[in-house]
């Protein structure tokens, strides 16, 4: 399976020579998605990690047409690029956005909602590393409960972030978007297939891919893929799609791996108490009750 998927994507590199940190999950997501979409992809990236590491004149690292947007403007610039190219008579292109969790769930959510509402023919990929990593690991709306960041310190009184992640996947789906999906760079073939599927659907597509950040998560740089698998295997993340009004679960672990093991491998969760871990486990179980009731599995 994996080899077949690997063979199906371009050998060409479209995001190359950038200065992302070793083990960067975000750059892997961008690299893989562009290998699916090919040279006629036009990438829009807001201020954030990927634009910071790839767009420093004269060191410009995208070999497809790419542009930085304002932080809040990933989706609105995608709209403009798509409308502009269509107005100029182009047909064979894909307007794709790559925004981080803060750029998507916080400052960019209004523009994203507008684009989905208009059903603009764009792919919006959120690479979720669960904090504002580019500015030095501050809490975002997608930082999970309990995570220590530089603005949610883990002390005696407060144990890191006190709020759970926003559910961007279901927020996108609530617009009745033509296609939304969750993914993880730990399950790269699944992500690649979702990008390919999105590229063949008319209208707005939203893909939310978990992309670990070794720097911000406190893991070794060669653990990105493993931890991105484990977040799915422990049930703290899930691989799913929304299409034609239906939620589908793509991958159902037979039994969940240990939540505690997943958490304790990461510096950002080291401080968590048994009670904190129980809150996280209970929240996972509640989420899976919801999935069992509302998602079909195939």
């Amino acid at each position, binding site marked *: 399976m994996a080899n077949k998927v690997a063979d199906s994507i371009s050998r060409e590199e479209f995001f190359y020579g950038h200065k992302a940190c070793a083990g960067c999950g975000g750059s892997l997501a961008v690299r893989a998605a562009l290998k699916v979409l090919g*040279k*006629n992809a*036009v990438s*829009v990236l807001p201020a954030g990690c990927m*634009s*910071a590491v*790839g*767009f*420093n*004149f*004269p060191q*410009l*690292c*995208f*070999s*497809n*047409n*790419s*542009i*930085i*947007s*304002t932080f*809040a*403007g990933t*989706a*609105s*610039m*995608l*709209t*403009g*690029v*798509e*409308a*502009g*190219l*269509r*107005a*100029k008579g*182009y047909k064979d*292109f894909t307007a794709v956005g790559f925004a981080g969790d803060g750029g998507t769930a916080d400052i960019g959510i*209004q*523009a994203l*909602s*507008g684009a989905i*509402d*208009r059903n603009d023919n764009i792919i919006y990929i959120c690479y979720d590393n669960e904090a504002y990593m580019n500015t030095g690991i501050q809490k975002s709306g997608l930082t999970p409960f309990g995570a220590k960041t530089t603005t949610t310190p883990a002390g005696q009184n407060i144990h890191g972030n006190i709020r759970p992640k926003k559910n961007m996947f279901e927020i996108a789906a609530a617009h009745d978007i033509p296609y939304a999906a969750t993914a993880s760079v730990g399950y790269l073939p699944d992500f690649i297939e979702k990008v390919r599927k999105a590229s063949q659907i008319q209208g707005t597509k939203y893909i939310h891919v978990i992309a670990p950040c070794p720097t911000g998560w406190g893991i070794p740089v060669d653990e990105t893929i493993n931890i991105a698998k484990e977040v799915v295997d422990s049930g703290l993340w899930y691989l799913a799609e929304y299409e034609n009004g239906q939620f589908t679960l793509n991958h159902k672990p037979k039994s969940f791996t240990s939540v505690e093991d997943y958490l304790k491998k990461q510096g950002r969760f080291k401080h968590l108490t048994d009670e904190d871990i129980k809150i996280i486990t209970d929240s996972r179980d509640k989420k899976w009750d919801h999935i069992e009731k509302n998602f079909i599995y195939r």
Partner: protein
Amino acid sequence: MSKKFLSGNEAFAEGIRLARPEVISAYPITPQTIVVERLSEMVEDGSLTAEYVHVESEHSALSCAIGASAAGARAFTATSSQGLLYMAECLYYAAGGRFPIVMMNADRSTALPWNIYGDQRDSLSQLDSGWIQAYAENAQEALDLALMSYKIAENKAVSTPYMANLDGFILTHTYETVDIPEREQADRFLPPYETDNRIDFDNPKNMAFSAGPDTNYIFKFKEHQGVLAARQVIRDTEKEFAEIFGRKYSGLIDTYLTDDADYILVTLGSIAGLCRETADKLRENGVKAGVVRIRYMRPFPNEEIAEALKNARAYGVLEKDISFGNEGAVFTNVNSALKKAGINISGYNFIGGLGGRNISAGDIQDIFSGLINGTDSVNFIGIGGVNNG
């Protein structure tokens, strides 16, 4: 050429229709709404072929226009007041990226207190954003600016976005008889937008990038040169416009009876007509009064203003703006022009029309009395002088 009875907003929309924008991003705000309403009707009835995008905010309106311009399309949007401030980040972005977008701004007061009426505090707060800024006086000029704007902005030496300002309500909602140019004439005047500053599938580009301390200043210098280049391009464009359409414009400023004037009032926008009328009355009583109407705040008419004011005894600047803690922004700019030219005459600032407050003929007569007899440096019409020390 046909004639229509149009408001300033409608006239501007007619000018934009003739300019054939390919992408229009629209978000409503009083008193701009009629522009985007008329454009939506033109797209509906087929008299304008454009992608009409219903964005969900002004920030997205300009962000979308930047994306469209980066795709090589001619882009238009319109805003006012709070909307202009909300999209402010994108103003600098569009200018730095050298995207020749045209935007109409209905000049309106900014909150707090809330107020929907016209003053110029919104656009004048954005003088440093890198946009060309024009101020129309009447509906005909509004239409003509709409048509000329793209030709100026898209000129390769300029490649700078263009903001056309219409006084809220006083100009946007006042009806006048307006000449509508023929489609053939407009097409002859304004060719399609051609640029290298765009997405190119044969030669892919990385656009809107970062530039560190080693190169950033070079991009900023070039941006400055682009706005400065508009000085000559505006003159050339108006010459060509006059040849095709028969209406003449006078570049960055419009002067009235300034050649022999002892007392000159400098202003901008729709109040200029009343200023000229007052000058006529004063001349009947032997006072040599004149008026300068600034048509472009950026590029700023330094030489033109110095030339117009050099033989005057005193000048005043009447503006619907105040830079709190100092003076009106226009006054600051005019003073700088005179200082650079070595002209040292008495100058006074008159702040009026804030939040749409009427400026009467009597107010303007009082302003001229202030120029003749001397007054405070900065004066709030209806309140009096304020110590600027």
